[in-house]
């Protein structure tokens, strides 16, 4: 899962005009850039940051859903949720590998996550308070991730584009599974229906924020567009998401927590009320309810696993030494 518009891209670059123009020609011809190709430093930096944020989002995203694995209300749902959270870990792994082709290590990226230097999608800084959150996250959070990620399958950087193809396939499975969970709740008891509505009320606005700030307020977007890292603006993707999602919610008998949400025949899409950007920036800057807990949980796993990782290295070293001695 993932993702929101890249937070704090820095596309500044210092190459010669000729070099940049030649690179831009490759972009315009839709050529794929591979790890050993020459690339502007700003392009590399932007990608490291974006892929890193994306990978961290997958990893931190395991926590809110993981919160319900041990309480899943049926064995079938327990297995499905476990498999889903495992998929997200797998996405993290491919993405770290894609970022490593740009000359950073997974350890460096992990340290940046744990120190708070690297960001991850702010959606994961909200708590999962009921079982319905598991359905809503699959349907809406994975759904929003897909909207963001489908265009990334055509990203100019080859390893990232290829990782996204595999990731998107799994995300769409997660989305269908999440919607089916919601559908089951919507046909269930009054308590289950109320649980589902409550979950939508809490997650709807944060999901719209996943697409990032309005186009006018989004820095460095133009450079990412020119470099074919980004294909659509934040607002365009958000609109597509709303247009696809509202009818699905109505089918479930749900009410969206936005009195201004209504179909606009003229534009062929839904109008919606104002997004609370103050809340968005508060959560991005670390002030969300779960920011601290998420990083603390990751740090705890990392610190408590240090002796295991160290033992694995030392053992491999001993093995090599024994093998050499035997030869």
């Amino acid at each position, binding site marked *: 899962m993932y993702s929101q518009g890249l937070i704090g891209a820095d596309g500044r670059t210092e190459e010669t005009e000729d070099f940049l123009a030649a690179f831009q020609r490759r972009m315009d011809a839709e050529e794929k850039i591979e790890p050993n190709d020459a690339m502007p430093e700003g392009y590399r930096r932007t990608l490291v940051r974006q892929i890193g944020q994306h990978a961290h989002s997958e990893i931190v995203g395991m926590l809110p859903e993981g919160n319900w694995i*041990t*309480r899943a209300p049926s064995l*079938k749902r327990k297995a499905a949720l*476990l498999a889903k959270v*495992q998929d997200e*870990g797998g996405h993290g792994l491919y993405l770290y590998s894609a970022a490593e082709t740009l000359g950073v290590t997974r350890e460096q990226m992990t340290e940046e996550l744990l120190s708070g230097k690297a960001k991850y999608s702010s959606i994961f800084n909200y708590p999962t308070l009921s079982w319905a959150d598991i359905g809503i996250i699959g349907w809406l959070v994975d759904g929003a991730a897909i909207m963001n990620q489908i265009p990334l399958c055509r990203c100019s950087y080859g390893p990232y584009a290829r990782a996204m193809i595999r990731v998107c396939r799994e995300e769409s499975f997660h989305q269908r599974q999440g919607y089916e969970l919601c559908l089951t709740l919507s046909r269930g008891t009054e308590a289950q229906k109320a649980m589902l509505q409550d979950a939508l009320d809490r997650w709807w606005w944060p999901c719209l924020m996943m697409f990032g700030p309005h186009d006018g307020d989004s820095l460095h977007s133009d450079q990412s567009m020119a470099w074919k890292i980004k294909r659509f603006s934040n607002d365009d993707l958000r609109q597509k998401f709303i247009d696809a999602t509202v009818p699905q919610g109505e089918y479930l008998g749900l009410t969206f927590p936005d009195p201004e949400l209504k179909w606009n025949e003229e534009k062929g899409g839904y109008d919606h009320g104002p997004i609370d950007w103050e809340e968005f920036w508060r959560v991005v800057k670390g002030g969300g309810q779960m920011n601290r807990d998420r990083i603390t949980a990751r740090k705890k*796993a990392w610190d408590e696993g240090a002796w295991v*990782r160290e*033992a694995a290295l030392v053992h491999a070293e001993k093995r090599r030494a024994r093998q050499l001695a035997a030869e």
Partner: protein
Amino acid sequence: MAPDLELFDAVLELADDHLVLGHRLSEWCGHAPMLEEDLALPNMALDLIGTARTLYDHAGRLEGQGRDEDTLAYLRGDRAYRNLLLVERENGDFAHTMLRQLYFSAFMHPYWEAALGSSDAVISGVAGKAVKEMAYHIRHAAEWVIRLGDGTEESARRMGAAVDALHLYTPELFEEGAAAGCDALPARAAMRGAFDSTIAQVFAEAGLCVPEVAYPPSGGRRGLHGEELGPMLAEMQSLHRAHPGALW
């Protein structure tokens, strides 16, 4: 199908072993020492929970009272659970978790191999799938027991502590329980040779000693558990029990 309560009890024991251990492994998800293990632990948990589901479903049919997998898993209290004490032990550190997994799979691999020829088609079907899964669990757990036993001073100390804490639960693996006299299931005592040889081989490479067990605990098969199963089931069953009759 005519009810077969003897086989029902025996299949339920097996199902409980798999669900409880699968649940324990699932508690690691998102908190493992490295990302690779965040993928491997849920993998093993999924194998175990998958086997438990088939066995519960089968048990429900053998009983003939209309209890399905979720009724059996979610609506029995800890005194009605029939799992081994070994599998309900808390995860502890990574050394404990991997050693517990090694003990269980080193027993279950030959067990399922013997069950391949069961007269009960569901059992032999489960065995066909589980035998491959258990071979992988042995491999994965054994690699870690060796790495940790023969790693750093700290990891060797932790691995030794895990052996001290868990080895005493292994004799219960061989107790017959409700399966005594069920032709459809292998005799558990017959797994002794294969189990001992797997453990001896892994421990030798890991630099670990097989301890003598003076007073092996037992009682899981009679519903006499330790203190850790009750809280585990309370958590696992909480949502299901809060909404009687709801479908999920």
